[in-house]
């Protein structure tokens, strides 16, 4: 792959625009860093990636929101790529839906959509979205990961990534997990000396902490770290 000539980073903390259209020109890269700690409205982001371009996105969402976040990444050029990572907590009455889709239009494009979440309280958390490989987009790789752990009986989670494949010579995979931490699970862990609070802490850190390394700003990293700790200890 050719060296990218231009690389650019866009960061939004809380003030995320309701609509955003981004273009990644040929042989350049764009990094989009999103972090939210306050309520959000519906948000829609469209990204077009030209030949050899690279889109990288990270979203740490700790906002108390009832909203839908939509991301569409169009891999318009050959050898273009998308690398997306989300870490989200839904708590109390939050109702959060994430539709993260990637459309492979040309050959040898690369798409990763990775979404991790924790649902607590009476919240609802949904991970959806499509990874589509259009006819002619040979030798593309696409992967969708959607993982949710539900901590409270009143909370719910749904992970339903969809793969649409119109070409044969491709690699496509998806992993979807929604796990509920049940009384039986907790008994198992407690029987080894690990109490409920510690068990939830280990799971939350395992799911959410990796997002931190995607933010270069150390102050923002600290704020995300505090939000993760807050999500663990608030109850």
């Amino acid at each position: 792959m050719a060296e990218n000539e231009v690389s650019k980073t866009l960061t939004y903390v809380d003030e995320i625009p309701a609509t955003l259209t981004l273009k990644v020109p040929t042989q350049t890269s764009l990094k989009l860093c999103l972090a939210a700690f306050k309520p959000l409205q519906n948000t829609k982001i469209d990204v077009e990636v030209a030949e050899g371009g690279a889109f990288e996105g990270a979203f740490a969402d700790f906002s108390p929101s009832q909203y839908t976040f939509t991301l569409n990444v169009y891999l318009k050029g050959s050898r273009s790529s998308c690398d997306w990572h989300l870490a989200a907590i839904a708590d109390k009455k939050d109702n959060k839906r994430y539709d993260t889709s990637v459309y492979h239009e040309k050959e040898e494009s690369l798409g990763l959509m990775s979404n991790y979440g924790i649902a607590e309280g009476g919240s609802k958390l949904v991970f959806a979205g499509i990874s589509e490989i259009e006819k002619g987009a040979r030798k593309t790789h696409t992967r969708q990961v959607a993982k949710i752990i539900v901590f409270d009986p009143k909370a719910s989670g749904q992970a339903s990534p969809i793969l649409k494949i119109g070409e044969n010579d491709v690699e496509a995979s998806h992993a979807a997990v929604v796990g509920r931490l049940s009384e039986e699970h907790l008994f198992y862990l407690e029987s080894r000396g690990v109490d409920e609070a510690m068990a939830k802490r280990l799971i939350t850190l395992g799911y959410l902490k990796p997002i931190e390394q995607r933010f270069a700003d150390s102050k923002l990293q600290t704020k995300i770290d505090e939000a993760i700790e807050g999500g663990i200890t608030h109850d």
Partner: protein
Amino acid sequence: MSKLSIKNLHVAVKGKEILRGVDLEVSEGETLALLGPNGHGKSTLLAAIMGNPAYQVTSGAIMFDGQDVLALSPDKRSKAGLFLAMQYPSEIPGLNSADFLKAAMNAHADKPLSLFQFYNRLQSAYEAMGIPFEMSKRNLNEGFSGGEKKRNEMLQMKLLQPKIALLDEIDSGLDVDAMGIVAKEIGDEQVRGAGFLVVSHYARLYNMIKPTRAAILINGRVAVNGGVDLIQKVDSQGYEWIKTELGIPVEKENDDAMNSVSIGACATRVAVNHGGK
């Protein structure tokens, strides 16, 4: 020497009385084989000793080292030196094995282990149990085969060094090699001085770990206490002789579904609101 003592224990599951007055003692340094037909309360007894909330103790007492075990939460029972190797170990979503083992070991230690100490102990335990160290990076029991789960139980016993270990059908689902590994680990802990309460349907495991005593649980009570010759007798004759020799009718197992399993459609995974308040 620590002693686990159970007196007149009554336990109900979903309102149905399973244990109806169990009296039993196990001390450090001895290995008690607990026999009995399916459905007569062996697993229930082990689960109740460890504090599984699905099993309600309606009367009776469990004492360990002078402590009232029934007053302790399961994590405190573990820290007191009890360990239960489960028949069906839970798969824990999202929980990394190594993170979990470290938390469990630290919960048992006076002061937190250094990273160096932890990895040394972890690596040698994985090696001893014949489990690839790579598996420490996977989620706890998630996607493990039946045999891997059982060896993973023994791995945890090795790391936590209990005073009394309760083993619930640790030999089910094991091939010959894995059986040897598990028996060796039990032997190592016996040498260390640990006590065991072992439930198994097969004389094969018992032949390898050499119990010191045996007891037979019938109709929710200990019907027979005796020597290890009971193991061979049950292995060759089953339990019919209990009725003819002791005059105790053996109740038929009530074949309730033990595990409800749900499997999701392809990639869609949903955890719905269970309607809790």
